[in-house]
């Protein structure tokens, strides 16, 4: 499997009045042409990890790593301008809620075409055709109408498909999906996931799927990293997730209700302070 | 628990009585306020202003009303007249010191009238709802539609010039924003469960408004009043400057600027000193208001 992305010893720090807060603490992993899940509760650093790869952590936040290699080149050594050529074109990201991640006062068409024209020198009509084609690819039928519409006129599921279209239109190698279905109705979650999955597979992309939903990740991904308090505590194949060894993962699994093994009382997760002290497990292949 | 200090008692996580909890909350607010240097400077200036106003007869080197035409328009730093003298030979420093009393008097009166009117109108409007709400809010909107200074001018014109009428005119133009705030607060409080619980226990509208709604509106009103104080001082000074506020020979700062205006090019200090006094005090109120907002109403901050 060829490595698209390789990260070693990633730290994300935020200086606060009470001292430096480490949101991500020495995380290492790599990504091939696969679907890599990152699971953890809120505050575990999973979203920060995704954003740190794109160097989207704003000052005063600090990103440090031995390297974040994309195709053998360290992203941390790039200038801001070089980094802009990476964003969108090589690594893209879909965020949680299309209600907030789409600009409310710009038409959907303009937003999608903008994503394409930032990296491709094409005419407006060329970009328009490409955008319509992309909207069709995410199963939006009346693309011409949607192009003229504003985000508030779209449903959540539509919005997230538009987001996916917008983020995939420059044809990136890696897509980071940060809780892409958490804000959606359960009924459309699967549909959005399937569309995303099909596109990622078809284009041979690498996908980093960030979620708090263990079952979803076990279902949808190839490999899973489990994060706790800014560290990776366990790495396993997605289909082996239910055999996970780490007490934290076990605790999480046991606190979920299961149809095949009903229990009168679910377990409550009991945290061991030692978990956050043990060094990170490497997720590099 | 015998060795518990007062500080520990105030900072406890487990208050033993209602008053304990209240004092503890106050103390924590004070601690966070105290860490705001700018707000403390504002508070310091205002405390000094009050002290100066109280001790005016002791502090002022001369009688602010005694004219001495032989010593008119003396420059800054003259022996015995640190800030010089005005066109009638009166000591500017003494007049500024006595002027602090007038400024405080105006501010205190407006701060007593406008928010109380606003609170009454706003809570009644918000609690009663229906056509009472519509009528009261329409009246509020009409007053808001007026340019404030122009309306105050027209009021003073109708009532006659003078410091009390200036206060009345400023209050009449200042209450609508308070009514808006109080109404908005009332609307959110009114629909909360605990008000429903009190009503089920048989409390009447009057009791609910005075005992349960007013106390909760107070903190946002205090912030707003403090932030508005600077505007009130400037409005009062503006009226004084136009000759519609305090009448001569009263040492009101705005009127002093107006008096010094005639000599601005040759004797600049006559108009400059009272202007600096107005600026300092309204700056102090702005600093204090910002600080209070951060403590009492953190949501409204930037």
């Amino acid at each position, binding site marked *: 499997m060829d490595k698209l992305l390789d990260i070693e010893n990633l730290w994300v720090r935020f200086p606060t009045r009470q001292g430096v807060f480490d949101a991500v603490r020495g995380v290492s992993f790599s990504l091939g042409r696969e679907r890599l899940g990152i699971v953890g509760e809120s505050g575990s650093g999973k979203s920060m990890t995704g954003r740190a790869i*794109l160097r*989207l952590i704003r000052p005063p936040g600090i990103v440090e790593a031995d390297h974040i290699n994309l195709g053998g080149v360290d992203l941390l050594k790039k200038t801001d*301008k070089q980094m*802009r*050529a*990476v*964003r*969108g*074109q090589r690594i*893209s990201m879909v*965020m*949680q809620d299309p209600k*907030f*991640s*789409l*600009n*409310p*006062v*710009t038409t959907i068409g303009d937003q999608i075409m903008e*994503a394409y024209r*930032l990296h491709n020198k094409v005419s407006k009509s060329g970009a328009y055709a490409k955008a319509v084609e992309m909207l069709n690819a995410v199963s939006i039928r009346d693309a011409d109408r949607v192009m003229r519409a*504003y985000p*508030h006129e779209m449903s959540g599921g539509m919005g997230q498909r538009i987001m996916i279209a917008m*983020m995939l239109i*420059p044809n990136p190698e890696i897509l980071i999906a940060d809780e892409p279905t958490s804000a959606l109705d359960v009924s459309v979650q699967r549909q959005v996931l399937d569309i995303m999955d099909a596109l990622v597979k078809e284009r041979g992309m690498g996908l980093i799927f960030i979620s708090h939903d263990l079952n979803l990740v076990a279902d949808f991904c190839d490999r899973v990293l489990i994060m706790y308090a800014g560290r990776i505590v366990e790495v396993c194949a997605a289909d082996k997730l239910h055999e996970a060894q780490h007490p934290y993962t076990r605790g999480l699994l046991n606190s979920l209700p299961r149809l095949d093994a009903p229990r009168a009382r679910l377990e409550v997760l009991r945290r061991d302070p030692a978990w956050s002290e043990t060094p990170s497990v490497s997720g590099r292949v | 628990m015998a060795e518990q200090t007062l500080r520990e008692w105030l900072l406890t996580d487990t208050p033993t009585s209602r008053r304990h909890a209240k004092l503890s909350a106050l103390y924590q607010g004070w601690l966070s306020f105290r860490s705001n240097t700018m707000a403390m400077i504002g508070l310091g200036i205002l405390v000094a202003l009050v002290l100066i106003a109280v001790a005016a007869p002791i502090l002022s080197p001369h009688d602010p009303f005694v004219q001495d035409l032989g010593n008119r328009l003396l420059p800054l730093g003259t022996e015995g007249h640190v800030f010089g003298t005005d066109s009638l030979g009166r000591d500017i420093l003494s007049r500024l010191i006595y002027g602090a009393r007038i400024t405080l008097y105006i501010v205190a009166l407006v701060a007593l009238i406008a928010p109380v009117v606003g609170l009454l109108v706003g809570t009644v409007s918000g609690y009663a709802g229906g056509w009472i709400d519509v009528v009261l809010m*329409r009246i509020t909107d*009409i007053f*808001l*539609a*007026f*340019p404030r*200074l*122009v*309306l105050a*001018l*027209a009021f003073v*014109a*109708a*009532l*006659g010039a003078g410091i009390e009428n200036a206060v009345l005119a400023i209050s009449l133009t200042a209450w609508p924003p308070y009514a808006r705030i109080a109404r908005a607060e009332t609307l959110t409080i009114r629909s909360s469960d605990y008000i429903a619980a009190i009503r089920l226990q048989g409390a009447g509208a009057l009791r609910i408004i005075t005992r349960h709604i007013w106390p909760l509106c107070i903190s946002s009103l205090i912030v707003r009043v403090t932030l508005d104080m*600077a505007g009130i001082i*400037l409005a009062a*000074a*503006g009226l004084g*400057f*136009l*000759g519609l506020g305090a009448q001569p020979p009263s040492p009101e700062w*705005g009127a002093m*600027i107006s008096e010094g*205006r005639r000599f*601005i*090019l040759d004797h600049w200090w006559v108009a*400059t000193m*009272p202007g600096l006094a*107005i*600026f300092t005090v*309204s*700056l102090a109120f*702005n600093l204090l208001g910002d600080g209070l907002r951060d403590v009492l109403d953190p949501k409204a901050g*930037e």
Partner: protein
Amino acid sequence: MALTDNKGEGRASLPPWIKTTLLTIGSIAVTMLGLLFITFIIGRVMPIDPVLAIVGERASQSTYDAVFLELGLDKPLIVQFLYYLWDVLHLDFGTSLLNARPVSEDIARVFPATLELATLGIIIGILLGVPLGVVAAVRKGSWIDQIARVLALVGYSMPIFWLGLMGLLIFYGILGWVGGPGRVGIFYVDVVPSVTGLILVDALLDGNWDVFKDAFSHIILPASLLGYFSLAYISRMTRSFMLEQLSAEYVTTARVKGMSEWDVVWKHAFKNIRVQLITVIALSYANLLEGSVLTEIIFSWPGIGSYITTALLSADMNAVLGGTVVVGLIFILLNIFSDLLYRVFDPRAR
């Protein structure tokens, strides 16, 4: 804003836009009526006898009574109010006691001076205040943010008339950089024909550069002064609007797309604050019309502020009330205007 929170229940058969329009017109009408009612009441409370003011102290009782009846003062208050309304609707604010001319004529004559001053002031305020606010938000906590904060704080705390005096003292008295009080120097009075009433525009229309330069040197100081006060407000509001937008998720989306920070700020975040900014600008323009009252006195600027104040000091009540009504109406019109622009710029409000 007063004109947006219509909550009335219209008839179900009417299309929504007609309903909104009717409600808006209704609420404007009520506000205007209220405004006129207040000025009417102020006029009645006046300690000045309107009859005596017209006939003079030495008129006979019969003359007095005739004028008393002519003014309708024997009628009930509500009828008098209706008379007043009728007159105002015909732009008749009565006659000025000072110069015996119709107040409406006077206002038409002095208003362009205020308009010119306030407009130049708001232009200065927008051109400096908006970029300052945006930069202060983007570089939050930097030295430029601190400067913006101090500028605003000082602006909120400074008496405008005093700053005007200091400006005159320094830039006119000591440095001699600008023209003194008045709209033009004494040699340029009435040199160019008055077409618009705005001297800068009239001078340009006439092609008279000397007058333009002189008028500009007179207007720049009071306009900058007004501009500074609107800058204080506009920059603060712009900053807090921008901070809110910059923390929004769509800004991250724009960055993920690979946009430059400049484009992220101006093409995405700034586009979202346009609507709020319009309201703020309309509000500060209205405040400038008001702030010009004191500024006009300092700079002997023959605008509506000077007019009202002069009338006030000579107890010319018709002129005071006429001026107050006009300024009040402009306030309301500005509100309507910003409300309309709101609907143009915000797709969610359409």
